């Protein structure tokens, strides 16, 4: 089988979309935070917490949708904690974000061990099944790729235009973008930058939690320690690639879903005799290369990583 054959069927593209969705939720999450001027390095921890909260709730109650809600709730909670730290207390965003991710990772693994114990076969749940959308799924090729997916995937599809509309067509979206560019000017115009950033982080947390929920409630059906494994960090890069625009970010996420699907297929096919770790490195390498190629054009919100102090204008 040649390498070209690997990508020339609908199964490949459907897999690319499946792998892109958690990145898409995560990227929209990061985008929301960064548009308000906050770099959210807590995203990795938020995604992982969402994954465990979703899995724990779903296996305790038997309801996948309650799991989704729990994942969103835990993400929003961590978002609020992050907001108190970096918005109210104006702590350094980079270091705080790492700290939040590290603490969340430790707490998630710790509670998983307490809750589920140590067993050789990880407990699993029956994940969401795919729902073919009437009519749309009958379109040749595209239908099977895009419209025979999980319900959460359709939520992700809707979120992209919704967020774009919010950012570019509503007063609240304009306020958020202004806070990210110049919080002092925003304050002068009567916008409360602190409130805007807190809200942005809480929403970002909810979206990151949703990304985590998708990973085990739709994609895998069980919780493993490597379930997020750096996907949060990839989302940070995808926001840069998508130049802080929801539509372009979605395209970047789908592209990286495809890179991920490609490396999985290449590994499985045995067409190329290379250590599998090189394939695992591929998404990160591709991200870095894309960031370099995109460097000149990618200019982020002007006030990104700058804490806002209401009393120093």
């Amino acid at each position, binding site marked *: 089988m040649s390498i070209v054959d690997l990508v020339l069927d609908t199964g490949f593209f459907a897999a690319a979309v499946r792998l892109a969705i958690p990145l898409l939720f995560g990227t929209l999450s990061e985008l929301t935070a960064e548009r308000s001027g906050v770099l959210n390095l807590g995203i990795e921890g938020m995604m992982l917490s969402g994954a465990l909260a979703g899995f724990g709730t779903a296996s305790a109650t038997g309801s996948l949708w309650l799991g989704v809600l729990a994942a969103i709730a835990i993400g929003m909670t961590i978002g609020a904690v992050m907001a108190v730290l970096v918005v109210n207390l104006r*702590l350094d965003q980079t270091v705080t974000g790492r700290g939040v991710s590290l603490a969340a990772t430790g707490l998630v693994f710790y509670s998983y061990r307490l809750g589920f114990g140590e067993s050789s076969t990880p407990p699993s749940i029956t994940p969401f099944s795919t729902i073919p959308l009437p009519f749309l799924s009958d379109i040749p090729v595209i239908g099977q790729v895009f419209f025979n997916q999980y319900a959460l995937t359709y939520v992700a599809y809707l979120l992209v235009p919704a967020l774009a509309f919010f950012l570019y067509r509503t007063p609240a979206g304009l306020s958020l973008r202004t806070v990210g560019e110049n919080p002092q000017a925003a304050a002068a115009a009567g916008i409360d930058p602190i409130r805007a950033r807190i809200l942005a982080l809480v929403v970002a947390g909810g979206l990151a939690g949703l990304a985590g929920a998708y990973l085990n409630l739709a994609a895998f059906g069980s919780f493993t320690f490597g379930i997020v494994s750096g996907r949060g960090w990839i989302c940070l890069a995808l926001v840069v690639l998508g130049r802080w625009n929801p539509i372009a970010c979605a395209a970047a996420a789908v592209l990286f879903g495809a890179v991920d699907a490609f490396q999985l297929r290449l590994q499985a096919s045995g067409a190329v005799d290379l250590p599998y770790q090189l394939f695992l*490195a591929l998404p990160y390498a591709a991200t870095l290369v894309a960031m370099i190629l995109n*460097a000149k054009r990618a200019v982020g919100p002007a006030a990104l990583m700058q804490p806002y102090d209401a009393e120093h204008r």
Partner: protein
Amino acid sequence: MRLVARPNRNSPLRDAMMPVAAVAASLLICAVLILLAGANPLTAFGIMAKAAFWGKFAAPLILSGLAALVALRTRFWNIGGEGQIIVGAMAAAWVGALTSLPTPLLIPFMLIGAALAGAALAAVPASLKTRLGVDEVVSTLMLNFIVMYLMQALLSGPWKDPVTGWTNSPSILRAAEFPVFWKGTRLHLGVLVAFLAVGVVGVIMKRTTLGLSMKIVGENPRAARHAGLDVTRVTLAAALLSGALAGLAGAGEIGGIQFQAIASISSGYGYAGIGGALLARLSAAGIIPAALFIAAITTGADEMSRQTGVPFFIADAMQGICLIAVLVAMTLSRYQIRFRTSPERRATP
């Protein structure tokens, strides 16, 4: 209701107590976690303290803490310590196995090679930042994963130990193993290197133009530019120094502990160094107690987990909580925290 942080009067006592308070607060939180796991927190902390002192983890943590310190001072967000430690370890493992080198040169060359490898890897995100404006937070993170998988690929393929066939590199030569100062301890040459590095970094930061330039660039790049400083060069220098220090941490692990490159050569030392640097309030001398404390958490958690059944993931949680607690404490020592219900007005003097 709203939290407002306001500048506070300087108080050296409060400054000095700050890391202590932060550590106490995080221990308190972790005590609750240990209680939840059904163990006695006091027993658990006791085991951690006993297991940890002079533990083998202190040396790499001192060096990676210094690496983070140099970078953070200059506001070069080097999250890539982990990758730089790995390439340093790879370089040391490679040099240490060279039979073509005269034996007295092995150890110096291992150290130099590791420092160069770490510096070279740090130079990538640094020049991407200064030339193209690529954000170093993301690029250093990506490089960590790339380097980690690359090493694993090498270890499972071309660099596999030909004798055992296991996924680690061939052992370094006997002559390349770092001398141990006290028999039966882990106090090897790498520990000495770490302590020397504390002195060197302390002098650089406090007594040299480079150190002062790094501080100015970190605090206010615009002012630095106005003062005629070459911000690009200072940033590059900080990145190279930071990477070299991280690389040395990798050399210590190879020459003093593992004697061969293994996949888990740096289990989070690079990330832990950031916490160490903050706990030390970015002072070189403070790195030593900070690294010992973090070593206590990590080695101690392993031992504690074995004896009490508390999941050892508590180490990560403790580190993260401690990192945040230190940041909060740093802010509390500089600012007063007020809860306000009314929209804020300008502070009356």
